[in-house]
């Protein structure tokens, strides 16, 4: 295995055990929350001024602010049916796109193109959602399928470029994001797709039969899109660990050289993985179109989901189940962050800080090990034990 692949695998968690891959992210979350508490405590100017005159009062104020903030974060994420709905609602696209990025990591590919793949998926889905007339039980899957195909083509193209010419996927997927963005900005102003009476790039609303039904009833935003995402978790897990193509993906991802010696077609694997990853991101794009009022495609439909998906995949150590937990965590932080801002007057930016801290700690496991005194599982002692198995 090349040094570089080694590094990638360590960063993306490919090849580590499940128990091991859950421990460090959990500790990273706790550490991030503690540091977040310090930031909350010191971010209120009044308290800082009070610190000089009445230290006891200031500390008690700080404490209650931290408690209030985290209580709001908790309440807003899992405190009520609506909170849970909001958490799942925010987690759904992250989960779908995150699975795509994770699948890429498993095959040794760094897919930064989820953003563009989502946009392309949403456009194709918009055509089907607007123009096809069909009952919901057909219209929904067909619209979703269109989204998947849009992303699949867009991702597959970057895969093909790498397989055929060796163009690095990091570069091509970033460039394809730009191409997708400007393409979408243009095509959304074309007749037939643009919302009549608008002059900015917005599509007409898709038909009601193509809209995703609500999961908890009409007053809550979460849709069956979340269930689809859970199915995707199971599907990707099955693909990676139970199917022979998945075996190929993982083998090529860890050691393409050994893969080709064993008769695997590396170029085909690269193309297929980028296509499937794009398809998953395309599903995320379709979900944003089909599950979010006013059910219109726009250039900003993907928000920052395509990039947060990379973080989610890293945090989930590229394991489908891990990605699910990571997406739920990010969904909870997003939903809880809004409540925190409303109730405790703590800027929602803190949520971004928390997310960033979690990711930094996950990316720097040595730091977390040092803080929590967790022994590394790959130290020289362990290696030594196993070499003694020689005959």
């Amino acid at each position, binding site marked *: *295995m090349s040094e570089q692949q080694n590094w990638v695998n360590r960063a993306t968690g490919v090849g580590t055990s499940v128990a091991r891959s859950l421990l460090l992210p959990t500790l990273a979350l706790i550490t991030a929350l503690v540091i977040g508490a310090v930031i909350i405590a010191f971010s209120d100017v009044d308290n800082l001024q009070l610190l000089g005159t009445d230290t006891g009062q200031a500390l008690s104020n700080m404490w209650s602010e931290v408690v209030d903030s985290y209580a709001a974060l908790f309440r807003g994420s899992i405190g009520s049916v609506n909170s849970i709905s909001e958490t799942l609602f925010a987690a759904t696209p992250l989960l779908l796109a995150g699975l795509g990025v994770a699948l890429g990591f498993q095959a040794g590919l760094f897919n930064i193109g989820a953003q563009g793949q989502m946009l392309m998926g949403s456009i194709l889905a918009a055509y089907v959602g607007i123009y096809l007339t069909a009952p919901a039980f057909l219209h929904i899957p067909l619209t979703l399928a269109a989204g998947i195909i849009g992303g699949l083509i867009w991702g597959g193209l970057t895969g093909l470029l790498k397989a055929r010419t060796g163009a690095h996927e990091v570069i091509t997927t970033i460039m394809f994001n730009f191409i997708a963005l400007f393409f979408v900005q243009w095509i959304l102003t074309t007749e037939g797709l643009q919302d009549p009476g608008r002059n900015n790039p917005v599509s007409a609303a898709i038909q009601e039969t193509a809209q995703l039904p609500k999961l908890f009833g009409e007053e809550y935003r979460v849709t069956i899109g979340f269930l689809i995402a859970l199915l995707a978790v199971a599907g990707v897990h099955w693909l990676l660990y139970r*199917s*022979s193509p998945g*075996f190929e993906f993982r*083998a090529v991802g860890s*050691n393409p050289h050994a893969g080709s010696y064993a008769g695997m077609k590396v170029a085909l694997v690269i193309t297929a993985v980028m296509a499937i990853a794009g398809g998953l991101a395309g599903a995320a794009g379709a979900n944003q179109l089909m599950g979010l009022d006013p059910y219109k495609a726009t250039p900003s439909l993907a928000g920052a989901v395509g990039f947060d998906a990379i973080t989610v995949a890293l945090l989930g150590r590229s394991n489908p189940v891990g990605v699910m937990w990571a997406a739920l965590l990010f969904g909870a932080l997003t939903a809880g962050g809004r409540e925190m801002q409303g109730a405790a007057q703590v800027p929602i930016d803190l949520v971004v800080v928390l997310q960033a801290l979690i990711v930094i700690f996950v990316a720097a496991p040595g730091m977390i090990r040092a803080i929590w005194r967790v022994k590394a599982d790959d130290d020289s002692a*362990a290696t030594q034990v*196993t070499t003694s*198995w*020689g005959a």
Partner: protein
Amino acid sequence: MSLELSGITKRFPGVVANDDVSLSLAPGEVVALLGENGAGKSTLMNILYGLYTADEGTIKVDGEELVFDSSADAIAAGIGMVHQHFMLVPVFTVTENVVLGLEPTTVGGVIDRDQARKTVMEISERYNLAVDPDALIENISVGVQQRVEIIKVLDREARFVVFDEPTAVLTPQEVDDFFGIVEGLKADGKGIVFITHKLGEAIDVADRIVVMRSGKTVAEVLPQDVTQQDLADLMVGRPVDLKVPKAEANPGEVVLSVQDLEVLDDRNVKAVDKVSFEVRAGEIVGVAGVQGNGQTELIEGITGLSEVVGGKVTIAGKEVTSASPRELHSMGVSHIPEDRQESGLVLNFTVTENMVLDSYYEEPYSKGIVMDWEYTRESAKRLVEQYDVRTPGTEVAVSTLSGGNQQKVIVAREFDRDVQLVIAAQPTRGIDVGSIEYIHSQIVAKRDAGAAVLVVSSELDEVRALSDRIIVLFHGKVAGEFGPDAAVTDIGLAMLGSGQ
């Protein structure tokens, strides 16, 4: 001046890597530290070099007891180490690599290149190393790179030098040169320890041989008192068969036929130039040659991994020139690649997964695209048992196994099916004597079962021990063909391009 390690004990969780080991070294003495993988040689040397701390025992230099907390302490005490994998910056020059970390500077912190260059020249001339101080590391051969490491050690004024498997990466010619250098160091009063598992080297070069097994020193002998057989038995702890026991070959039909084969290397230079030979069922043909004379490309050309630019390859009468690895797999060709970690295994995959790396897609390991892991696991368990792979289980990463056991995983995978042609490249490189013995016996067993076998090895001893017929490659051409009993000197001359 002397170096003395006494009563060294080092425990790792679940294993005692060094158990009350003692070793002494006098100036001008060469000690060979012999042992199989995992015998504790590297642990002992890492303790000496300050990379590990011993749980018990002492290190004395010139009678003074020292504690090494890091390699810096060891270096300060006059101990130098040349690792098996060199620690050099490829894009730096020889001089830059030598002075890296202790650059001589002029006023203002500017590196004094002239001074640095002079130092390198001095050392190079003194020990007859013939190293160009201005050459880039990436442009010089492995043998010369090793000399740069030696200069590094000498520049740091080492009096005791440890070599970790110094000859593992060298060509036969370079090995001779290396031992010449060792003689020079010895004459200059340096104390030398070299770690090896090559028995011949230990006997030829060392003044004293220390044999380790399972963390203990099991013998300390003088080279004139022992034979290779004695040393092998001591290392393994039981009588070992150094000769490969095999009956007369009984060649049948031609299985592999290579005609005028031409293959390019990765720099697009013709590395295999009109090579022709045949391998029959039931015989082992060995390809000898100094590393880098086209052996790698020959194998890659036959196995469909490199593009063939001329000639043709047929297997059992069917033309398979440039056939894909998978087509060959399905025809009953098994391939043991020359670099097991780079091409033979996915190191972070489990033993089970590696056992089906090239047959995962076919029944009974999968049906359609659904893997049958239950069957695959059971099958891996059986193979581990049958091929004597020492592993804590089939579900551990193959990277945790020793080199010999990793190689056995590959052999198990490649041999456990109907095979009409075996292509084995460097089948026993860098592995322990016990595993070598086992793998050789498996290769002979395949021959006796009627397979045609092509073995490529840079170890002439291995080629001679295994082969029923030997062909020698030199500069990509066949430079000679020999029977199994041909004189070593004749084969050696052909390897240097001056035979026949």
